[in-house]
């Protein structure tokens, strides 16, 4: 991993580690149900145990997302969400808390704004970096330049299907942490966390990653506990989106508190 640039996400994960636990990373889409609600929900997550926050940009063609997130992001767009509002959400959360705030986005909205322009505005808003579900390092040369220029984290994904060569390449390309996709599939809540996740985390660590966080299908404190035992961070998305859908910001706060209870590593 590139370490010359100080990484906000790495610092947040390391802070959790120094407290003897894995980091909790909560995802919510920007503008769902409104821009202000996204800010409030982000702050609520930060105040209830989340170490990093991932703000998604609603996109017309979210191929890595299951029905719950699709429904939320579609509604956000229908309600008039504009990409530039994501910077307001990031700024609103970073102004009120000291969590690291990353933006999760499909690549075309960034291309449309211009990779440099997008990165500059994200850095100005206090953002930590980008998680890019449909951008692989092979296509990311513009993003390498811009993220170096503005000091942003580059969180690429690795999957159970990644070959050792691709793991090594992706680890090298990433800054902050590496996002390990727990299962072959799309976002959504699941009964069990697949056993392939533990192996993938081990392989990614072995490939040189200092920090590996696991996402996709993590739905409850039990899952969090399971993953916290071997990963540096646990990423929860769909369950939080369902919470804000059904119970608004208070439900997000409750669920985050609940999830964070699973973080502490069992003391042997």
């Amino acid at each position, binding site marked *: 991993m590139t370490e010359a640039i100080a990484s906000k996400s790495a610092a947040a994960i390391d802070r959790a580690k120094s407290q003897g636990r894995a980091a909790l990373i909560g995802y919510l889409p920007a503008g769902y149900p409104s821009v202000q609600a996204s800010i409030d929900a982000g702050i609520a997550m930060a105040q209830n145990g989340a170490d990093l926050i991932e703000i998604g940009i609603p996109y017309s*063609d979210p191929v890595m997302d299951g029905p719950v997130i699709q429904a939320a992001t579609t509604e956000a767009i229908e309600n008039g969400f504009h990409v530039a509002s994501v910077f307001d959400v990031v700024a609103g959360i970073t102004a009120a808390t000291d969590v690291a705030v990353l933006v999760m986005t499909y690549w075309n909205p960034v291309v*449309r704004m211009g990779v440099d322009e997008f990165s500059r505005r994200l850095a100005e808003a206090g953002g930590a970096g980008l998680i890019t579900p449909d951008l692989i390092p092979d*296509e990311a040369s513009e993003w390498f330049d811009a993220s170096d220029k503005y000091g942003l984290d580059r969180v690429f994904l690795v999957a159970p299907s990644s070959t050792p060569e691709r793991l090594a390449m992706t680890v090298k390309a990433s800054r902050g942490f590496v996002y390990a996709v727990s299962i072959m599939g799309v976002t959504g809540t699941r009964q069990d966390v697949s056993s392939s996740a533990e192996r993938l985390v081990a392989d990614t660590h072995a490939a040189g990653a200092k920090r590996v966080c696991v996402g996709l299908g993590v739905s409850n404190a039990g899952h969090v506990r399971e993953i916290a035992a071997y990963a540096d961070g646990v990423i929860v998305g769909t369950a939080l989106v369902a919470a804000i859908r059904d119970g608004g910001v208070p439900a997000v706060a409750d669920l985050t508190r609940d999830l964070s209870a699973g973080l502490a590593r069992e003391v042997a």
Partner: protein
Amino acid sequence: MAETSENADINAVDAFLQGGSLKNAPGPYFGKFGGRWMPESLIAALDEVQDTFEKAKADPEFLAQLADLNKNYSGRPSLLTEAKNFSAYAGGARVFLKREDLNHTGSHKINNVLGQALLAKRMGKTRVIAETGAGQHGVASATAAALLGLECVVYMGAEDCRRQALNVARMQLLGATVVPVTNGSQTLKDAINDALRDWVSNVDTTHYLLGTAAGAHPFPAMVRFFHEVIGEEARAQILEQTGKLPDAVCACIGGGSNAIGIFHSFLDDPSVKIYGFEAGGDGVETGRHAAAITLGRPGVLHGARSYLMQDEDGQTVESHSISAGLDYPSVGPEHSYLADIGRVTYEPITDTEAMEAFRLLCRTEGIIPAIESAHALAGAIKVGKRLTEGQATPSDTIVIVNLSGRGDKDVETAADWFDMLDEDGNVKGTTLSTRKPKGPAERLADAEKDQN
């Protein structure tokens, strides 16, 4: 990066002008287009497809198997038919139709499907998934799956299921499962999204049989390869029938597979003008169209960088066309490249122009074309007029049109367009519905309703 691709463009044009070749661009990049804008989860699968394809292409046994299916199953070579009556409407240019409508299942789609289904078998996959717009690719996929003993699931926008109900039934008769997609615009792009979600989740057993020359590498180059037979046959046939190369080649552009298939054989002949016709819908000035090259700007969708209809936020804009098969907001990356270097001219054709050409071909030649293909016919009318203008002997001008499919699936749309239906959707003056016939259960329910 931008600099090198601009240089690559210039180099490609130079190479072409100096007698180099544009024909066999291998991907992943076509100038600054193409690539793999895909989740990491699918990269291993794309690599496997690429590897299997490269090996198969060099394997005489595979090529023989494919040639045998093309000949003895699809009915290739397809005819090259001179449309002598239609010619009068194209300025008197001689118009030749490459009859992909005569292939088994009724369109060019079968060429690609047989190739990819054979690859799926080679990879040991037991299941294929496909997206479909008009239903032609879905029908072709279901057909190949039935023939080769593969499970088949087809994703189809709910809007398209309504427009192409007959093809839904055809796929089901062939043993495929059709999944209506209710996300987004409920058309082709959303069907592709759902197919990709399925593929990510089932990649061990499943091959994604993409139906057009778009998507992530190796799909654009691979789908082109399986359709190159169209151009190879057409080139030999026109030389045999007229003794010379055509002045122009015309095709419609959805994702661009039938077009790249016929263009391929003529790309390196500077004397041949090449035209791609996009769906202009209600007219490009109305915003309701599917003319990605004409009015889009470069972006990434479904794995490739290409021209894309998008708003100022980079959200995909919904496309519109009377033709379900052209109703796609992007286009294969090789076409974006060929447009940028000026080798191929892309123009929009409105619904009205396409339907006029549709009727004309029915009446003058006794051939009912797919509405997709009618866009190419409408384009050929314009091109024929343009090229023959001021010419003493217009019949010296030769235009080939890729007639990519037959119009059986479009009968309801056409009957509606030409005002042949009454309010109940019956053909006027009859009780004959163009809609799908009622099954026993529905008839029973109607009878009960009548009694009440």
